[in-house]
């Protein structure tokens, strides 16, 4: 067997049941990600004496918890064959709204509710335009990427909202027992919910069906447009939640917050094994990919690698991880073809 990207079906082979299952496990993309994660953690431990420290490891989860939330909903969107490039801008708009409410003395629970509501509304706007006017999602969300952040720039200009209630700060800065950040717990809980939703419900199965062939899905009675609207709305809600956590953690809102996150989020989903053309992907895969990127940047940060080098390393990892299985498969096919063409050889 070879490493198999989940977009390609594993080729069946006559084997004993146990052996087949073992091979299938070894060939799963998630297994490769676990190996990559272990290698990264091993190298981090070797490179820095500060890596294997419970306090530091839990602190480091704050690097990726907010982005991880966005990756979860992005996974659903990419599986249905769409993309949402406006998530980072939704964070800016939502953050601005939350900051505005906080400035006017709104209490913490309503800041959270209000933030998620604005995010959801942004997502519904995306979904509505995409479904109602049948405009490709990439076009609509590139538009709203500028639109949502633009509104934030109009409201704030060169100003910032920096006054938040103490209890609000606890959400993004507080920890359980002095170690586990609330943000990380929220992320893990959402990941579990998404995993069940995608892999254990009819709704989840339908998303895969749409991504593989939207036309066929429609003829099988799946309400494709309703589903698309829903996943974009869900993406907005998750961006709203991420914005609430981000705002709470940083304690300041400026219109350039979370700039460029959309590409990191898409890259993480792709590394997690989500086929960019839709139809396949798993939540465990993207969660692992989120950890891979998180631990990689934490490790590189610990040895003070400059950000420019860090981008090069993460970019190279992404290309290598995606390209290696494809190259290996090509090589194998070429070998087989040569063998078939020359039976004596």
């Amino acid at each position, binding site marked *: 067997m070879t*490493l198999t990207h989940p977009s390609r079906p594993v080729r069946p082979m006559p084997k004993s049941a146990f052996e087949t299952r073992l091979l299938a496990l070894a060939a799963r993309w998630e297994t490769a990600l676990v190996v990559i994660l272990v290698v990264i953690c091993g190298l981090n431990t070797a490179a820095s004496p500060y890596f294997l420290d419970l306090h530091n490891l839990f602190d480091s989860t704050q690097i990726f918890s907010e982005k991880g939330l966005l990756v979860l909903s992005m996974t659903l969107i990419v599986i249905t064959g769409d993309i949402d490039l406006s998530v980072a801008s939704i964070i800016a708009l939502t953050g601005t709204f939350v900051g505005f409410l906080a400035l006017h003395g709104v209490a913490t629970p309503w800041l959270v509710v209000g933030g998620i509501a604005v995010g959801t509304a942004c997502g519904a706007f995306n979904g509505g335009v995409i479904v109602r006017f049948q405009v490709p999602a990439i076009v609509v969300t590139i538009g709203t990427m500028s639109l949502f952040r633009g509104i934030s720039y109009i409201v704030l200009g060169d100003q910032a909202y920096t006054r938040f209630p103490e209890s609000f700060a606890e959400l993004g800065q507080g920890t359980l027992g002095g170690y586990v950040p609330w943000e990380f717990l929220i992320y893990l809980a959402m990941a579990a919910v998404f995993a069940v939703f995608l892999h254990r419900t009819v709704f989840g199965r339908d998303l895969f069906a749409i991504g593989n062939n939207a036309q066929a899905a429609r003829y099988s009675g799946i309400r494709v447009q309703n589903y698309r609207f829903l996943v974009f709305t869900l993406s907005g809600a998750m961006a709203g939640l991420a914005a609430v956590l981000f705002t709470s953690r940083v304690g*300041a809102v400026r219109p350039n917050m979370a700039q460029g996150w959309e590409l990191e989020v898409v890259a993480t989903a792709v590394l997690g094994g989500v086929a960019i053309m839709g139809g396949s992907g798993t939540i465990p895969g993207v969660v692992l990919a989120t950890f891979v990127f998180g631990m990689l940047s934490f490790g590189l*940060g610990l*040895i003070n690698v400059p*950000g*420019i080098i860090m*981008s090069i390393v993460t970019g190279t*990892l992404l290309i290598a991880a995606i390209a290696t299985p494809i190259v290996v498969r090509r090589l194998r096919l070429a070998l087989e073809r040569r063998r078939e063409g020359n039976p004596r050889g």
Partner: protein
Amino acid sequence: MSVKLHFGKLAAATILAAASVLGASLAARADDVRIAMVVKNLGNGFFDAAHEGGEEAIKALPGAKLIYTGPTTPTAEGQIDIINSLIAQNVNAIVISANDPDALVPVAKKAMARGITVMSFDAGVAPAGRVFQLNPSKADLIGRKQIEMAAKTLGGKGEIAILSATAQATNQNIWIAEMKKVLAEPAYKDLKLVDVVYGDDQSDKSYREAIGLFRKHPDLKAIIAPTTVGITASAKAVTDQKLVGKVFVTGLGLPSEMAGHVHSGAVDTFAIWNPIDLGYTATYAAFQLATKKATGAPNSTIEVGRMKSIAIDASGEAAMSEPYVFDKTNVDKFAKIF
């Protein structure tokens, strides 16, 4: 079969190993006084010079080690991640030039709670997040100096515009406010500020903004760019548009980047404090604080080696010196230094 499986792992491992080796040599011993200088972004000539000053201070201080770091793009988020990893490394002191005065406060507080000395230089962190702020100069002097330079070049009258960094840049906004105060004085009543634009400290955007100013204001006589990126982009725009002698560029720039523009005539005078001195002073002061040789409290002073001493005022800020003016008589000499 298993050979193929290992191929993928091996490729990933090789890349990671190569990446780790790059940084492994930077690991320092625990008994050193490790001072981390966190700048707005890497690849910025001003901070490269500050780094050089920091290294000079380290040589004069026994047991001191310098970690020079910063994000790729000038964002507060990037700096927060970096400061978190410095906290994890348990460094002794962090010296920050902040991309956002407020957003860095929670993480800076966390660092101080873990016993790390935090101070800011160049662009300050809000008071709750640092011991004291080292200003390269005083905001009023910097604002005034730039208006004086423009007034001198233009003979005291004409339309001027400001091309700044980002709309959120802390220090640029303070200087612009000071410039507006100076312009309100009777001596400068014939200088008319017609526009303030933002080039986001990116060469291409600053260049486009400068061209936009020429189009929008045909009678423009001078651009004041209080940023090293903006001033070179503006000077290049003046040269490219063949406006040398008609529009003058002034502001804050690095001699090495400005020498050509001074000789071409696009720039008459510009100013800057010495970033080498600034990096030296900041690093030296951080060492004094981390080793408890100074408190950094309001109304105290800190001995800073060859820069003598700096006085911290009642609001917890200290000024290093006045900005220094360069023209064609002295720019070449300093261009060799920074």
